[in-house]
């Protein structure tokens, strides 16, 4: 758990980078720091491992005030991932990944075992990749290595500064999925900086939206989309926030609320979609194809019904717009 208690950072009397930020990242959850450039999100992140100083207030990590800890010890207990992956070109992949365990004086055997385990997590062959150098890997592979390097000494807390920002959209999407999969297994307490709204919605248990170093809103993605607290928040998420919120709902959710349509075998050129797909992807698929229905399949690959644009719209009206209008009245 990371608690920010009325944290403020001033460069001078007039220059305040962070003002009175107060929130908590719960054990095993991901909080995404989101906001426009220069809003102080990276500064806030770097205050946790004391790469930036704190002017007022305190940051408490798992019950310990960060000020009371030796910065070197503190940093070794926190996984740190940066955008350009920060791998050291003079070290092999294994040396890179095992750097913190090495600094902590782990035995050779422990390091070897841990390395194999971590490489398995990201689906790379430990023997093959261990001896290679970072420049021999693709951007996506390097970023994966950057992530497992932060996990190497099994730190309870991780800081991720736009870790997937430099990747192309397709790879980024894949690595995000992969990372969420890993997170389900390792359950770290994560602070994650992003300027990408879709990434924030996808990754976050809660989003902290910042502007000029002040908290605009701290909420779950669906709450923030449904009930933006002020003009800035609703503008930041844009007019299409209804569509964005579709990515928080799956075909399964829709089926539970309003049910799917019957399968019409006569319609040709019908694509299929998995029941756990999100509705935003489903909608894109519907809009991109000739046929006006998509067949929904379950885990066993059985056809369990069809979905149409009308159904998505109906669901949107019931579930999402209903909540939004309720908030505007209230």
């Amino acid at each position, binding site marked *: 758990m990371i608690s920010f208690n009325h944290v403020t950072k001033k460069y001078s009397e007039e220059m305040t980078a962070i003002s009175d930020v107060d929130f908590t990242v719960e054990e095993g959850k991901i909080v995404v720091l989101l906001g426009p450039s220069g809003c102080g999100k990276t500064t806030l992140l770097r205050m946790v491992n004391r790469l930036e100083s704190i002017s007022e207030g305190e940051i408490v990590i798992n019950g310990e005030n960060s000020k009371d800890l030796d910065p070197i010890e503190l940093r070794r207990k926190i996984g740190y991932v940066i955008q350009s992956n920060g791998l050291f*070109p003079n*070290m092999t992949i294994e040396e890179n990944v095992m750097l913190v365990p090495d600094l902590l004086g782990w035995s050779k055997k422990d390091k070897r075992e841990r390395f194999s385990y971590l490489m398995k997590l990201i689906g790379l062959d430990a023997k093959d990749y261990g001896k290679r150098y970072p420049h021999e890997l693709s951007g996506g592979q390097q970023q994966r290595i950057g992530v497992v390097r932060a996990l190497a000494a099994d730190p309870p807390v991780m800081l991720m500064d736009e870790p997937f920002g430099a990747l192309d959209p397709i790879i980024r999407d894949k690595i995000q999925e992969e990372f969420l999969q890993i997170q389900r297994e390792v359950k770290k307490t994560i602070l994650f900086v992003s300027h990408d709204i879709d990434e924030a919605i996808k990754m976050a248990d809660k989003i902290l939206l910042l502007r000029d170093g002040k908290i605009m809103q701290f909420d779950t993605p669906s709450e923030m989309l449904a009930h933006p607290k002020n003009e800035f928040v609703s503008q930041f998420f844009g007019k299409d926030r209804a569509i964005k919120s579709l990515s928080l709902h799956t075909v399964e959710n829709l089926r539970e609320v309003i049910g799917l349509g019957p399968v019409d075998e006569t319609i040709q050129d019908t694509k299929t979609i998995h029941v756990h797909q999100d509705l935003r992807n489903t909608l894109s698929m519907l809009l991109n194809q000739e046929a006006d229905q998509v067949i929904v399949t379950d885990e066993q690959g059985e056809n369990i019904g069809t979905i149409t644009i009308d159904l998505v719209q109906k669901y949107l009206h019931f579930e999402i717009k209903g909540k939004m209008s309720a908030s505007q009245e209230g």
Partner: protein
Amino acid sequence: MGNWGRFLEVNSSRILELTIDHAILVSLAIAVALLIGIPLGIYLTTNQYLADTVLQMASITLTIPSIALFGVMIPIFSLINQGIGFVPAFVALVLYSQLPIIRNTYTGIKNVNPEMRDAAIGMGMKTHQRLLRVEIPNALPVIMAGVRTAVVMNIGIAVIAAYIGAGGLGVLITQGISRGDNYLIISGSIAVAILAIIADSILLLIQKRFTKKAIAD
């Protein structure tokens, strides 16, 4: 060609001896220059103000003509009865080597990718660990380029040191000039050139041996 044959028959052992003297003078001067210059260059990366001052002083030293610097050394080292010979030449060569060594060490480390440095600090490396494991290995090609410059330059400058009695291949050239003996001048010059090429090649091999392929690319 017959003349060359006879010349080398008489002088080859002397040329070899002077070449070895020359190499020893330069090697010792470079060894001491490295011991001073590399730690100083590393230290300067942490002190911007001092860095500017020291680098400027080292630049100024390099602008002093070598013959003048050797001249200046004579009265100073006469105080300890070492006015001419090995000591003043050695000191002058150490001074001349400082600029390329300090500047390349400083620049090499300063130019290590700041994100890499950030990652190193963020992962909890202490200053010396960061220097030894990240910054120096990644700055090595630049540092070695400075050392190679210093070595080749010193092999040339050490020729002038013959004028203050420091020995070395300069002896052949100065004698050749005063006697009007072209054989001496040419053989001395070629020996200096070959020595410089060999020294540079050896250093390049060392550099490649200690630089990971990843950085050399």
